[in-house]
C-alpha cells in the first residue's frame, strides 16, 4: 500500500528512482509480513491456492445465485486476462474487444444449436471457435499496421459497432444462388436454445457445473498466458509497449507483434464466448455493447494493466461490487464502507481523519435540522431499502420527497466540488472535505442507490477517469516510466 507521506509516483517522473528509498526500508507490521509471506511463495503455488479456494465456493454457497455470480466473475476474469494481453502487455488499445467475445459466442451458437441444426461436440467446437476468433483478430488488426494507436482505437470501436449491426441484421441475408433469405444470426432475437457443453458424454447443465467448467478453463488459460508472457514474444510485447520506435530500431517486427497480440486477445475472448453462450443458453446482440467493454476495461485498469493477478483481482472486485449494488441495503454498506476505507488510506494522521469524519457527521446533522425546520414537506423521503444503515441515513441525510431536480443539481455540484478538491491542498482541502462528503452521500441516497444500472455505469466511468489520473497503474500494475 502506498504511504501517503512519500510522494506517490507521478506521471513523467522516473518511478524507479523516486522509490529508491522505499526499497531500502523494510516494511513492518502484520500486513507487510503477510504480503511478504504471500509473495515468497512460488507463483504456481499461489495460483494453486487461489484456484483451490475458488473451487470451494459452490460447496459453501447458499444459493445458485451466488454461484451464478461466481461464474460471471470467472468469465469476466478470463475476458480481462485476454484484454490484458492486448492492452497491458502489448500496449495496443483495442476498443472492439467485446466484438470478439460476441463473435465467439455467436459462432459457437451456430455450431451447437438448432439454428442450422448443427450440433458439434464441444471438444470440436471450442478450439475451432477460438482459432477462428484469433484469425478474425488478426484480420481486424491488419489495417492497423500502419496506424497510430489513436486511429486503431477508433477503428476497433467502429468494428464493435459494425459487429452489432451485422449480427442484428443477418437474419435476412440472401446468399448468391439462393432464392430465399437465410437466417444466420437470428437478428435482434438472437439465437436461443444453444446446446449445453458436453465432454465425453457428460453434460454440463447446472450453474454449479458451469462454475467448475469455467474454473477449469481459467486454470488452463492462466498458465498458458504465463508462459506466453515469459517467452520471447512476451518480452517483445513489453518492449513494444514501452517505446514502439525503439522497439522497431531494435529490429523487432512491430507490425507482426501487434497482430499477434490482437489475435491472442481475440482468441481468448472467443473461447470465453463459447462458455457464455452455453451458460446463457442463447446469444443476443444486446449482450455485447459498449457498457460491457467499459466494464472489462475498468477491471483491467483497476487491477493494473500488465499484471495478471491484478486483472483477476480487478474482475472479482468490480463484479462483486456491481452485484451488491443491485439491492439498496447491501449497496449502502458497500458505499459508505468504501468512502471510509478511502479516507483511511489517504488521510493521515489519524487526528485529521477523525476530524473530517466528525465534521461530516456534524455538518450533516446541522443541514438535516435546518432543512427539516425550514421545508419539512420537501424532505420526507425514506432511505430506499431500509435496514440498519438506512435507519441512520434517514436521520442524517436529507432525503427529498421529489429528488429529481435538486438531486441532479446536487450531482453536478458534487462533480464540480470533487474536481476542485483535487486541485486544493492543505487546510483548504480538509475544510472542504466534509461538505463534499455529505453532498456525495446526498446524491447517493437520493439518486443513485435506487438506480443500480445508472449508478453502475457512472461508477465505472468515474473509476476509469480517477484511476488514470490518480493511479494509472491500478492496484497491482507497475508504474511506467515515460520519457516525455
Amino acid at each position, binding site marked *: 500500500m502506498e504511504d501517503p507521506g512519500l510522494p506517490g509516483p507521478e*506521471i513523467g517522473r522516473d518511478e524507479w528512482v523516486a522509490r529508491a528509498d522505499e526499497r531500502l526500508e523494510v516494511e513492518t507490521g502484520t500486513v507487510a509480513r503477510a504480503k511478504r509471506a504471500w509473495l515468497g511463495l512460488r507463483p504456481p503455488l499461489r495460483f494453486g491456492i487461489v484456484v483451490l479456494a475458488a473451487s470451494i465456493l459452490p460447496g459453501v454457497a447458499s444459493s445458485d445465485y451466488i454461484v451464478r455470480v461466481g461464474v460471471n466473475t470467472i468469465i469476466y476474469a478470463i475476458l480481462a486476462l485476454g484484454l490484458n494481453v492486448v492492452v497491458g502487455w502489448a500496449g495496443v488499445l483495442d476498443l472492439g474487444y467485446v466484438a470478439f467475445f460476441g463473435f465467439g459466442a455467436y459462432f459457437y451458437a451456430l455450431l451447437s444449436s438448432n439454428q442450422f441444426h448443427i450440433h458439434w461436440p464441444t471438444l470440436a467446437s471450442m478450439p475451432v471457435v477460438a482459432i477462428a476468433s484469433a484469425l478474425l483478430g488478426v484480420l481486424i488488426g491488419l489495417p492497423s499496421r500502419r496506424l497510430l494507436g489513436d486511429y486503431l482505437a477508433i477503428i476497433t470501436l467502429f468494428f464493435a459497432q459494425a459487429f452489432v449491426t451485422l449480427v442484428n441484421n443477418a437474419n435476412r441475408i440472401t446468399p448468391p444462388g439462393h432464392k430465399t433469405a437465410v437466417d444466420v444470426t437470428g437478428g435482434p432475437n438472437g439465437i436461443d436454445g444453444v446446446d449445453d457443453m458436453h465432454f465425453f458424454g457428460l453434460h454440463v447443465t447446472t450453474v454449479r457445473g458451469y462454475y467448475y467448467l469455467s474454473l477449469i478453463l481459467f486454470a488452463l488459460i492462466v498458465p498458458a498466458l504465463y508462459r506466453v508472457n515469459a517467452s520471447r514474444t512476451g518480452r517483445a510485447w513489453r518492449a513494444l509497449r514501452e517505446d514502439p520506435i525503439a522497439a522497431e530500431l531494435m529490429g523487432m517486427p512491430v507490425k507482426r507483434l501487434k497482430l499477434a497480440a490482437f489475435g491472442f486477445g481475440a482468441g481468448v475472448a472467443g473461447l470465453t464466448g463459447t462458455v457464455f453462450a452455453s451458460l446463457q443458453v442463447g446469444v443476443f446482440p444486446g449482450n455485447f455493447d459498449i457498457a460491457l467493454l467499459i466494464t472489462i476495461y475498468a477491471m483491467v485498469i483497476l487491477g493494473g494493466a500488465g499484471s495478471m493477478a491484478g486483472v483477476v483481482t480487478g474482475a472479482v472486485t468490480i463484479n462483486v461490487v456491481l452485484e451488491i449494488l443491485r439491492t439498496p441495503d447491501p449497496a449502502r454498506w458497500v458505499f459508505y464502507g468504501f468512502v471510509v476505507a478511502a479516507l483511511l488510506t489517504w488521510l493521515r494522521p489519524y487526528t485529521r481523519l477523525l476530524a473530517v469524519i466528525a465534521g461530516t457527521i456534524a455538518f450533516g446533522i446541522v443541514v438535516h435540522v435546518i432543512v427539516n425546520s425550514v421545508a419539512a414537506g420537501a424532505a420526507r423521503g425514506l432511505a430506499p431499502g431500509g435496514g440498519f444503515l438506512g435507519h441512520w441515513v434517514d436521520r442524517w441525510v436529507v432525503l427529498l420527497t421529489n429528488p429529481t431536480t435538486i438531486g441532479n443539481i446536487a*450531482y453536478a455540484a458534487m462533480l464540480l466540488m470533487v474536481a476542485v478538491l483535487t486541485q486544493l491542498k492543505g487546510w483548504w482541502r480538509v475544510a472542504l472535505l466534509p461538505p463534499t462528503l455529505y453532498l456525495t452521500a446526498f446524491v447517493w441516497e437520493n439518486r443513485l442507490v435506487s438506480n443500480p444500472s445508472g449508478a453502475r455505469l457512472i461508477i465505472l466511468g468515474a473509476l476509469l477517469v480517477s484511476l488514470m489520473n490518480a493511479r494509472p497503474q491500478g492496484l497491482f500494475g507497475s508504474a511506467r516510466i515515460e520519457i516525455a
Partner: protein
Amino acid sequence: MDWAKLVQLTVDGTTLGAVYALIALGYSMVYGILKLLNFAHGDVYMIGAFIGYFIYTALGAPLTPSVSVVALFLLMLGAAALGCGLLGVGIERFGYRPLRNAPRIAPLITALGLSFLIQNSALLAFGAGFRNYDTFALDNGRLFSLGIHFHALNVSLMRGIVILAAAVLMVALTGFIRWTPLGKASRAVAADREAAEMMGIDADRVIAWIFFIGSALAGIAGVLFGVLFQNVFHYMGFVAGLKGFTAAVVGGIGSVPGAMLGGLFVGLAESYAVGYLPQGSTFEDLWVFFILIAMMLLRPRGLFGQADVRRA
C-alpha cells in the same frame, strides 16, 4: 434520372454534413494541439443539445414562446456555446491536463471514461426518454413550410438556417485561426509546443481556449441538430461523435479546412448511400465505417492532413 431526388439528397446531406463538420472541428483542433482524441467530444455535443432544449422549453417553446423566434434561437445557441465551452475547459483542466506527459494510452482511456461518465450522468439526470424540440410546431410550422417547395423538391427554411449558421461559424473560425493573435498562437502550439512556450506563449491558456472554442462549436452543433432533427437523448453523442471523428480523419486530422470538408463529405456520402444503395438505410451505420477504413488504408493523412512522422 430523378433530379429532384438527387438535389433533395444533396441538400439533406449538406445539412447533416454541416452538423458533422462543426463536431469534427472540435476533434481536429484538439488533436492538432494535443495529439489527443477527445472521445468525450461527442457527449459535449449531446449536452449542448440538452442545454438548448431546456432553454427552449423554459421560454415556452414550441407552443407559447415568450420571445421571438430569432431571439429564441440566439439564446439557445449562446447558452449552449457557453455551457459546452465551459464544460470542455473543465474536461481539459481536470481530465487531461494532469496527463500531459503520460503514456499515450492514459488520456485515451480517460477520454473513454469521461465519455461514458457524461453519457450516463445525462441518463441519470434526464432519464432515458427522448426529448423532442418539435420545431415543427414552432411559429405554426413556418420554419418548415417556408422554403423551396417545387414539385418533388423540398428544401425548408430550417435547413437553410442550419447550413447558413454552420457556414458563418466556419468562416469565422478560419478567420480567427488565420488573423487573430490567439489563432496564431494556437497554430504555434500545435506545431511545436516547447518552441511556442519559449517564444513566450502560455500553452496552457491557449489549449484551454482551443478546448473552449471546439466545445462551444459542438454545443452549437447540438442545438442545430435539435432544431432540425428534433430528438435529443443521452446516447446521441456517441454515434455523432464517431461520425464527426470520421469527418475529421477524412479531412485530415489537425486541419481546420479539412474538418469542414470532411464533414461535408461524410454527410453527403451517408445521404447518397442511404438514398441509392439497396438496403442502404438498413446498414446506415456501416457506410461511415467503410469510408473510414477506406481512408485509413488509402490515405491515412486524410485530404488536407500532414503526413505524420510517427507511423506505428
